[in-house]
Structures are given as C-alpha cells and as structure tokens.
C-alpha cells in the first residue's frame, strides 16, 4: 500500500499524492527515508528539498525551508509555513537572491541572515532545476 503524502501550508494544502517513498532531512542533519509501515515519527525539518518518489513513477521535489514531518500509519504529513513546489519557484528571482546573499557573505562572512538566505536560494534552485 502506497504512502499518502500531504504537504500543508497555512495558505492551504500545497500537494497531495501517493508515494512509494519520501526522503527528507531533519534538523539533526541526517536524511530519513519513509517507506510504508514506518514507525510513527515526528521530526523538525532542515532547510532542504523533500523528495517524493511517486507511486506511478517519477519524483516530485518540494523546497521546504522550515517545517515538520509527521508519519503515522501510512500517512506522511509535512507541515511547513515556507514551502514551494517546483512549479511555483521563480528561478531568476532565486538566482538573484543567491547572488545577493553571496555578495553579502563576501563582505561579512558571519552574517547569519545572508547565510540562511543563501541556503534557501540553493534549495529553491535545486528543486526548480530538478538536480
């Protein structure tokens, strides 16, 4: 039985589908793959793409900049207030944001905000360009 995957944001559900496997990265730093029958788990997600290997073949990547994953039974629920599916990502904008963040980091390498912005831009591009 495939996994029921749901991505919920405060503006509304962003993605629902069935999947063979979901791969996410938690705050601790390790990737976790969820297969049907996974033990119930609640985790904080790192700024990283979440990969959904869909039941019909094919992979959907979702840029999750902050959020939680809850796995119970065969349901995977991703809660995120900042998440984007590939189709909604503005590539030029993300590239501009990346360049801007790199520029800031060159002059002030300990700028936390710029570092976070760079990471977000990289994740966006990774998802949008399907790498």
């Amino acid at each position, binding site marked *: 039985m495939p996994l029921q995957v749901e991505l919920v944001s405060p503006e*509304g*559900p962003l993605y629902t589908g069935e999947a063979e496997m979901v791969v996410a990265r938690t705050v601790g730093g390790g990737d976790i793959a969820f297969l049907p029958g996974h033990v119930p788990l609640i*985790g904080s997600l790192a700024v990283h793409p979440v990969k959904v290997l869909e039941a019909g073949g094919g992979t959907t990547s979702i840029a999750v900049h902050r959020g939680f994953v809850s796995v119970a039974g065969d349901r995977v629920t991703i809660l995120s207030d900042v998440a984007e599916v590939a189709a909604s990502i503005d590539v030029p904008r993300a590239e501009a944001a990346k360049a801007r963040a790199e520029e800031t980091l060159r002059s002030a390498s300990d700028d936390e905000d710029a570092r976070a912005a760079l990471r977000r831009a990289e994740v966006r591009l990774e998802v949008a360009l399907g790498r």
Partner: protein
Amino acid sequence: MPGAQERILRRRINSVKATKKITRAMELIAASRVVRAQQRANAARPYAQQITKVIEDLAAGGADVDHPMLRVVESVERTALIVLTSDRGLAGAYSSSVIRAAEREIHAARAEGSDYELVTVGRKAAGYFRFRNYRLAATYDGISDKPTYEDARRIANTVASMFLDGSVDRVVLIYTEFRSVASQRVVVRRFLPLEQTSTIAEAGSATALAGFDFEPNASSVLADLLPRYIEARLFAALLDAAASEHANRQRAMKSATDNAEDMIVRLTRQMNAARQAAITTEIMEIIGGAEGLREAEGDGEDLLLDHLHSTTLFRELDPTDHAHAAPGHV
C-alpha cells in the same frame, strides 16, 4: 421655470442617487470579498488542525516539557492586548465594538492593578487609542482586509518576544470571530501563555497515537513547534477578522443603499408637491394680474374668476396634494 424649492430638492435627489451608486458598488465588492476571505480561512484550517494534532501526539508521547511559552505567572503585572480592527470605516460597528471590548479589558486589568501594552492592527484602533493618549507598543496597518501569513508571523514574533523577555505576563487577543455571513461576534481570547500541551491535546480529537519517535528529540520539536503554533493561531484570527470586516461592510452598505432608496422616494414626493404648489401659485398670480388690469379699466363688477369653473382651473391638479402643498415662494 422651476421653483427654488423644487430646484433644491432635485439637486438633493441627484446627490442621494450618486451616493447610492457608491454604496451599492461597495456592497457588491464586500460581498465578493467575504466569499474569498471565507475560502482563505477554510484553506488555513488544515494547517492549524495538523499542527494541533502534532502537539497532541507530542503530549501523548509524554513530551510534557517545560517551555517559556507555557510559563504561567501568578500575579499578572502587565497584560498585552492584541486588537484586530479595520483600516477603513464604512463597516458599521465592526471596529468600534472591538475597540470597546479592548477598552473594557484595559479597565479590568487596571482594576486588578496590572498595567497594559497595546498592539493594534488596523488604522481604526491605532487612531482611537492614540487620540486618547493610550500607550501603544506596536501598530500594524495595511493588512487587515487581506492578511498574509508573513503578517501573522511578524506580529506573533513581536508579541512572543515581549512575552519571552518578561515585559508582559499575559497576552490576550481581541477580534471578531466569524461564525457565518449573518453572525460575527467580538471575542477575547487568551493568547499567551499557551495552555499546557495536555490541555491543547484534550481540546482536539482524541485520536493521538502513542509511541512516536521524535527527531531530533521531543523537547526540541516542541520548541520549534510552539512558535509556529502561535503564528498559526494568530493567522487564523486575522483571517476570521478579515472575513468579519467584509461581512460587516457588506451589511452596512446594504442598509445605506436601502436608506438611499427610501430617501429618493421621499424626496421625489416632496419635489412633486413643491412643483404643483409653484404651478398653482403662478396661475393665481396670472389671474390676480388680469383682475387688476380689468379693475383699472373700470369694469370691476364683473370678476374674471366668476367665469371660470373651479374644476376647469384645477383640472390638472390632485385636490389632496393641493391642500397639503406648502405655499410656494416666487
């Protein structure tokens, strides 16, 4: 030539008609926005439900950890009030009833010997409290009719940091709850400190499964989760308030349109009466003038009026209107 009174009335009718067009347009706009605001509130619900469910699961997993947002202070020295009103008027008593509730809360807090901090959303509340020399900790405007999650996050962060650094001991949220298009109600809700996780869990459905693993661990998940939870709660309140604002504006504009219609009918009647009175007066003056000329020619015995039958003279006029009409001025 129309009489002076008639001209004044005609001008008033035209102005009321113009106003009616505006209120009618505003009513229709508000009606479509209510629907959209309701849809947004419905779209936000799954997230709030899921985040509550995760807290339930955490509580069921035995993660009743200590968190500053759960800290309950025995003697409240300072209360923060978040007041959600609109930026613009013409929404009936929408903003003023929220403001009244907020003022009541401030007085109640003072009676208990605690101070207040005000955080206002919408120009109406900011204007009201500033004019009356209340102290405003933060004001937000330009968001009330179409709030975004980003707005909710900004406000929630401000309020949470006030709470966490101890400058306030309690936060209440005062807004208009949207129940249906026909019914909205001003509510005062406790915002911070949060209820204990077990209390949040009890309020939700009791479907929590025990035996969850936590990654990285229960207390750090909870520490990440609670700020998101208060943001989601504030966002839900902002969306409710926006839907209520549009519903109130729709109702206010509908009654304004109805009033304008009544007024047009009434003024049209008055104008018709004035016109008839003016015509009557004019006829009387013509006859009076003709009589004067005849008298001057020395034929005073035979009055012109005697040759006219009254029904011929007033044929065009409704006798009741004639009786009620005010004497016309010329």
